[in-house]
C-alpha cells in the first residue's frame, strides 16, 4: 500500500473544507457538471497548489482578463501541453528547492484538461510526463466531446452520441466508435495511482483527488463531467445524470493503486442504460437495437473490471 495514504483520514460530510480556491462568479453555463467537479477538486487540494490548465471550457470561463476565478497560482499555455507545462513547473521547483531559492515545503502541482485535451490531442504530452515520473497529478474533466468549440466528437464521446461532427443521418446513427478507455492507458504507464470519479459522489471524488496529490510521482484522476449544453440535458439534473452513469455501469468508479484495481462502488443492482440515455437529447435518435448493443457492451466491460478487481 502507498505509505502517503496512511496519514490521510479522508474527507467526510463533517470535515469538508470551507475554502474555495476556485472562486464563484466564473462564467460557466448553468448546471455545468464540469465546473462543479473542478470546484470539488480544488476544495480537496486547498490553496497549496499550482494549477497548469489546458485550453478548454474551464480555462476560458475562469480567466477572462482582467478577471480571474483562481485564488491559487494558475498558468495556461496551450491546449495539448498542460502535462508538459506541469513537468517544467515541477522540475523548476525541484532544483530551486535544492538550491535553497524557495522554501523546502511541498507544493502540489496539478495539470487539468478536458477529454479532448487529455485523450486526443494531449495524449503524447501526458504519456511523456507520466513515463518520466514527475511528481504531479493530472485531472481529466471528461464531458465527452469538444464542448468549448461547440460540441464536436472526441475519442471519449460515447457510442451513438450525437455531436456536431458525429451527426445521426441516413447513413449514420451518431458516434460510431466506443469510448476510449483513457484511465486504462494511464494505468498502463505503471504509475502509482489512477482513479475515476464523479461529482455525484463528491466525497469519493475529493478523497481520490487528495490521494492523487499525496502519492509520490504521477497520478491520474478521470472525472465524469455532465455538460447540459452539449448533451441536451436539463441543467438541474447534472448530478442525477452523474449518479445514473455510475448505477447503469456507464461510468464505473474505481481506483488503480500500484497496478491493482479496486472498485469504489460495486454495482449489484444495475439500472438499465436506457434510463440514463433517455435524459439526454444526444441519444434521442438511438433505436432499440443500438440501445441493446450498448447494454451488452457495458455489461461486458463492467464484468472485465470486476475480474480485474478480483485479481487485486
Amino acid at each position, binding site marked *: 500500500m502507498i505509505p502517503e495514504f496512511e496519514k490521510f483520514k479522508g474527507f467526510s460530510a463533517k470535515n469538508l473544507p470551507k475554502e474555495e480556491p476556485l472562486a464563484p462568479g466564473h462564467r460557466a453555463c448553468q448546471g455545468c457538471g464540469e465546473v462543479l467537479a473542478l470546484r470539488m477538486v480544488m476544495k480537496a487540494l486547498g*490553496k*497549496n*497548489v*499550482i494549477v*497548469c490548465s489546458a485550453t478548454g471550457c474551464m*480555462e*476560458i470561463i475562469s*480567466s*477572462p*482578463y*482582467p478577471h*480571474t476565478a*483562481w*485564488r*491559487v*497560482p*494558475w*498558468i*495556461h*499555455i*496551450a491546449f*495539448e*501541453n498542460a502535462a*508538459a*507545462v*506541469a*513537468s*517544467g*513547473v*515541477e*522540475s*523548476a*521547483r*525541484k*532544483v*530551486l528547492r*535544492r*538550491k535553497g*531559492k*524557495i522554501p523546502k515545503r511541498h*507544493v502540489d502541482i496539478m495539470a487539468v484538461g478536458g477529454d479532448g485535451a487529455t485523450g486526443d490531442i494531449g495524449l*503524447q*504530452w501526458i*504519456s*511523456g510526463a507520466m*513515463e*518520466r515520473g514527475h511528481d504531479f497529478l493530472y485531472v481529466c474533466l471528461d464531458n465527452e466531446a469538444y464542448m468549448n468549440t461547440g460540441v464536436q466528437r472526441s475519442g471519449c464521446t460515447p457510442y451513438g452520441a450525437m455531436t456536431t461532427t458525429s451527426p445521426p443521418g441516413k447513413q449514420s446513427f451518431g458516434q460510431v466508435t466506443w469510448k476510449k478507455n483513457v484511465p486504462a492507458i494511464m494505468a498502463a504507464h505503471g504509475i502509482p495511482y489512477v482513479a475515476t470519479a464523479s461529482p455525484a459522489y463528491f466525497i469519493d471524488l475529493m478523497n481520490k483527488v487528495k490521494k492523487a496529490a499525496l502519492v509520490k510521482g504521477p497520478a491520474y484522476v478521470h472525472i465524469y463531467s455532465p455538460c447540459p449544453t452539449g448533451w441536451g440535458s436539463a441543467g438541474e439534473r447534472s448530478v442525477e445524470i452523474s449518479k445514473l452513469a455510475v448505477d447503469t455501469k456507464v461510468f464505473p468508479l474505481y481506483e488503480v493503486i500500484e497496478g491493482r484495481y479496486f472498485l469504489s462502488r460495486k454495482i449489484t443492482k444495475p439500472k438499465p442504460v436506457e434510463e440514463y440515455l433517455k435524459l439526454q437529447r444526444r441519444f434521442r435518435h438511438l433505436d432499440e437495437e443500438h440501445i441493446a448493443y450498448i447494454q451488452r457492451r457495458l455489461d461486458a466491460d463492467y464484468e472485465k473490471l470486476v475480474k480485474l478487481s478480483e485479481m487485486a
Partner: protein
Amino acid sequence: MGKRIGVEVSIAIADAVKLARAEVIPAYPITPQTHIVEHLAEIVANGELDAEYIPVESEHAAMSACCGAVAAGARVFTSSSSQGLSLMSEILYIPSTMRLPMVMVVANRAMSAPISIWNDHQDIMVQRDIGWIQTFAENGQEAVDLVLHAFRVAEDRRVSLPMIVNIDGFTLSHVIEPIELPTQEEVDAYIPPFKPKRKLDPRKPVTMGPVGIPEVYTEAKVAHDHAIKNSRKVILKAWKEFADHFGREYHPVESYKAEGADTILVTMGSISETAMTAIDKMRDEGRNVGLVRIRLWRPFPAQEFRAATKHAKVLAVVDRCLPPGAVCGPVGAELRSIFYKIPGAPKIFSFVAGLGGRDVTVERFEEIIDKAEQYSKRRPKELYEVIGVREK
C-alpha cells in the same frame, strides 16, 4: 580570463550554458543540435551543474516545459533545429507575449521536403515573427559569447523576453575552433541571478496566460512590441559590458571593409567568414567592395544598418531561405523596406544561396557582387535570383 582551447562549438555552447548556471533544461534531440544537448546531459549527470534535465518526448513538450519552468522561477535553456523548431512553433509565440525569458540555441537547418539535415536559415525564417530577440553567430567564439549575452539580456526585468541564438548547423555546430571560455567567477559577475518579477507561488497567487478578449488583445500585443523594441538599449548595453568584462566587442551589425565601399555584400551567420575572403580577394583586385553582416535580427537594427551602409550605391543581399511565391528572401525584403523612399538609398538586389547545405564559395560571392553591380546599371527581370542552381 579562461584558456583558449580547441573545442567543438556545440560542446563550448553547452559549457557556456553550464557557466550561465541554467537550472532547467528540457531537451529533445534533433540533428544537428544533438551535441549541445548530449553534452548538457553529461554535465548534469556528472553533477557539474545543479540543474534538472528533462528528456521530453518532443520539441513541443520541450518548449511547453520551458514555459512552465520559467513561470516557476527557474533559469531555462533549450536547443532545437529545423523540423523540431517548427513542431514547437505553436508554443513559441506564447512565452514571448507572456514575457517568460529563456534562452534557446537554434542549430539552423533546412526544412523538409525533401528532408535535409544540412544547413540554411529556412527553419528560423518561418519563426521570424514569434517575438523573440534573435541573434546570429558567425563563429564558435561568437556563439559562446552570444549565449552568455542572451541570458543577461533575456532575464533583465526591463526586457523579460525569450531569446534565440542562431548558429549554422554543422558549419558551426560541428566544427572544432579555438574558443576561449570565461571562468565561472567572470560569468557570475556578468550574469546576475534570475529574479523574475512574478512567478507561480502559492504564497502569492497569480493568474498567467488568461483569455485575451478583443478589448485587451491588441494592447497585449502592442505591449509585447514595445518590449522588444525597447530591449534594444539593454542589448547594446549588455554588449558594451561584455566588452568590458571579456574584451570582445559586439554590435548589432558588423562591417568589414564597408567604409566607403560602393557595393556592399550583406550576410548573416557563418557564411560571412567566406564572404570576407571574397571581399579581400576583390579588394586586392581593386574593386571597391565591402561586407556588412547582420548579427541582431530581432529587433531589427534599422538605424545601425542604414549607418553602416550610408555611402553604398549597391547592396547585394544574401538570403539562406527561399520563400516560394514571395517577392524575395526575408532579409532582402527587410532591407528594401528600411530604405523605402529614403533619399540616396542604395539599390538593393536580393540573392538566395546556400540552401540545404549547398556550399557558398568565394567564387559564388564574387558572382553575387558582379551580378548586383550589373543589375544596378540594367534592371534585372526578377526581384531575386537563386545562385548556384545546377542546370542539369
